[in-house]
């Protein structure tokens, strides 16, 4: 069994969000980069758990990004990825990115493809579903649990207000979220070993970009908090009713 895990580079969750070049690009000064948490904590660690249960499973990583994404790819290799494939291009439009990964996926003949449920920067939540359409395979989104039995996956996925259990034959694309696995820290052996693991770089295949970012902006600052004395909480209820008209 071969599993492909798609990983993306995002700013750290505490990064200050600011924009440069006349608000057309993210200001990267001083930003710490991480593996998108959904890709790392849930998709990658789940795949590692599956391999721990069945060592014959092969774990490959896919990334679309410039050379500056290599540190996060090495971290994913340190955690347990065995071989990585980086498509050397900026990840801008979702369809363009999905097309690059689809190209890798077709060549690698994978049984399972994992993505995070979305990235914490663009919040497109699109790559997994687009990939499944490009590969013409089933897609289960927001998976919180997965069990493999040979070629059949039993997947628990979130639905609005609950969960649903689906059963399907592979190949499939699954987007992962909280519940699938728990965050891990790479150990020293993993970090040392990651340096010599294969990281293949290829140039992008031709694909259209359907969208482009025109500009960014920040939400207006709050006017300031109105403090209500702790001994008169009923005043809060009055304000929420009469002023904010929220209740």
């Amino acid at each position, binding site marked *: 069994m071969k599993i492909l895990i798609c990983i993306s580079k995002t700013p750290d969750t505490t990064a200050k969000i600011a924009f440069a070049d006349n608000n057309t690009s993210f200001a990267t000064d001083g930003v710490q980069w991480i593996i998108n948490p959904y890709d790392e904590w849930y998709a990658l660690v789940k795949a590692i758990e599956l391999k721990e249960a069945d060592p014959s499973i092969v774990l490959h990583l896919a990334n679309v990004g410039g050379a500056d994404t290599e540190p996060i790819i090495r971290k994913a290799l340190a955690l347990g990825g065995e071989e990585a494939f980086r498509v050397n291009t900026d990840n801008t439009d979702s369809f363009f990115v999905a097309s690059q990964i689809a190209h890798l996926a077709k060549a690698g003949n994978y049984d399972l493809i994992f993505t995070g449920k979305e990235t914490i920067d663009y919040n497109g939540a699109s790559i997994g579903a687009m990939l499944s359409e490009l590969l013409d395979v089933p897609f289960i989104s927001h998976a919180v649990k997965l069990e493999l039995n040979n070629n059949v996956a039993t997947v628990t996925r979130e639905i609005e*207000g609950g969960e649903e*259990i689906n*059963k399907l034959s592979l190949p499939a694309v699954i987007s992962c979220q*909280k519940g699938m696995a728990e965050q891990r820290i790479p150990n020293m052996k993993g970090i040392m070993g990651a340096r010599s693991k294969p990281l293949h770089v290829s140039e992008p295949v031709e694909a259209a970009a359907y969208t482009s*970012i*025109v500009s960014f902006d920040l939400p207006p600052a*709050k006017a300031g908090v109105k*403090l209500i004395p702790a001994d008169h909480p009923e005043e809060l209820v009055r304000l929420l009713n009469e002023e904010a008209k929220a209740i």
Partner: protein
Amino acid sequence: MSVLIFVDIAEGKIKKASFEAANYGAAIANQMGTEAAAIVLGNCTEDLSMLGNYGISKVFHNTDSALNVFDAKVYAQAIADATEATTSNILIFSNTITGKALAPRVSVRLKAGLVSGAVALPDTSNGFVVRKSVFSGKAFASVAIQTDKKIISLNPNAFSITKSNNSATVETISLTIQPSTIELVSVNKITGDVPLGEADIVVSGGRGLKGPENWGLVTDLAQLLGAATACSRPVADIHWRPHHEHVGQTGLAIAPNLYIAIGISGAIQHLAGVNRSKTIVVINKDPEAPFFKAADYGIVGDAFEVVPKIIEAVKKLKGSV
């Protein structure tokens, strides 16, 4: 040329987010001087003509039994085929779990650019530009769609509904529905009443509540307000509350009309998931809690003393209305 809205059904009923999507699509149709139609897949117990109240002029309905199990592949093909059959060139989804599984697949099928998580009507003064939420609610991006066909998925609670007394015509649409390869084993509704992502009011608790045994404060207030309940990440991580209640950067991002945070300090990751809420109330005994900076109303005090008094005051208010 027209606008088609995917109206999502759960347990035979139209989802709230779909009414917003329908009304949003109708507003775009109005902007473009065209009409808005809806596509409904699967059995629905509601009278679909009432989608006219939300600006839909025509509803296309297909009840093939293969649609009873949600399979993104099957649904996406049906929606793409319906888009072509109705010669629609703008397609609207709500950016819910279902919408997120469908819109990108349909985007590939139709070679139509997708903007997911839209928060405003498109700006068509120079191209077709849609404002969307990015960085988990910490910023917005204006994104141009370059393709002829366009797909937008609208964030829940981002568009205010304007209703009318109009009625829509409902007709059956014939589509070739592929058999699903996904077997539905079971469905387990956890919350049942108010889905967190669509709730108007959300009451949320953090570690300041000291233990799961104290959650009655949150659930009582929520029940009284018809609100959904939520929690901070540490609370979900230590299993005081289920994971699906976790709001924040790595949990669910929500945008209710009112968000009441009890005993939550307001770490930047938590704020990212809730700062699109219209009104934020923070109750925390630490006056230095960062959440107060993002709040509209705040009480510096002990939740165990303050919240019961709030509950009493809300009871009084509800009794008088």
